[in-house]
């Protein structure tokens, strides 16, 4: 059970990192579009599709993970789980602390090395 919990924590961290990473890149592209191209999209259409598909894949994976954790948490609340399951639920609130909040991750996503992208492009142009 502890293995299961540890694996869940690791998985939650990994999925959250992947999600943050892809959101950061999406944000960076949007920033460049707004700042240098008056908001016009700059990616090839197939590249943009790939980006959206990657975002959907991570979001879906997080959705499955959240459902799993929620079910575990509900089982514990209904008294059908085991004591160890209590670790899946935050004490007091009885809401699971392993659930990944997609909106929070989207909000806290920061720009990647946009300055580096611009610097490299300038060097290439000169």
């Amino acid at each position, binding site marked *: 059970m502890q293995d299961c919990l540890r694996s869940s924590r690791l998985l939650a961290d990994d999925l959250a990192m992947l999600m943050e990473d892809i959101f950061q890149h999406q944000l960076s592209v949007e920033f460049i579009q707004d700042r240098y*191209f008056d908001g*016009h*999209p*700059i*990616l090839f259409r197939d590249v943009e599709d790939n980006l959206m598909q*990657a975002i959907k894949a*991570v979001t879906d994976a997080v959705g499955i993970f959240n459902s799993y954790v929620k079910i575990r948490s509900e089982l514990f609340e209904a008294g059908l789980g085991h004591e160890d399951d209590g670790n899946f639920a935050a004490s007091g609130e009885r809401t699971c602390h392993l659930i990944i909040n997609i909106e929070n991750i989207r909000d806290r996503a920061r720009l990647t090395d946009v300055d580096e992208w611009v610097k490299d492009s*300038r060097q290439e*142009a*000169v």
Partner: protein
Amino acid sequence: MTKLLVMTTISGQKRLDEAEVHLTPKERAIRFVKDMRHYPCQGDFWGSVAKREYREWPWVLPLYKLSQQARARYPGKSPGEINRCMECDRRLRTEFQTLRSLIGRADEIITKKAEKIALKTALKVSTLQTLIFKDTLSQTAKNAAEYIEAKISADGDNQRILEELRADTDAGLPSLIEAAG
């Protein structure tokens, strides 16, 4: 009438050409991305570019036009004016090239990143499926173990469990049939 129409078309085209000369590097870069995104994928874009004249390539044509723009701004023949023209030409072209490189760089980075994230996500989904399977199995086994353990400890020995089972069997089917009959 036809002559008038032709003259109007020619003068309209001339005005468009004049306006085009004054497009900024940013506006030209935006035209470039619009051209890129006109096609559903990169392959189609490059295929279309390959069919065009060299001077019509979407990143070559703007360079000619920007040079024209610099010459229009500094038309003089004096050394100072020529220097200013060259400086303006260099600045405009560099600005356009920087934006064009930025587009290429963004495309390159996002292509790699999207592919990497998609692969890593597929791996994580597989790990998650294994985890759910193992967890379900572990829960079932644990429940069964608890049930059996409780039975044995409450009854003291296996004999009483067997007696209970026998009693259940005696009061089983025949009595149920009678009750139902």
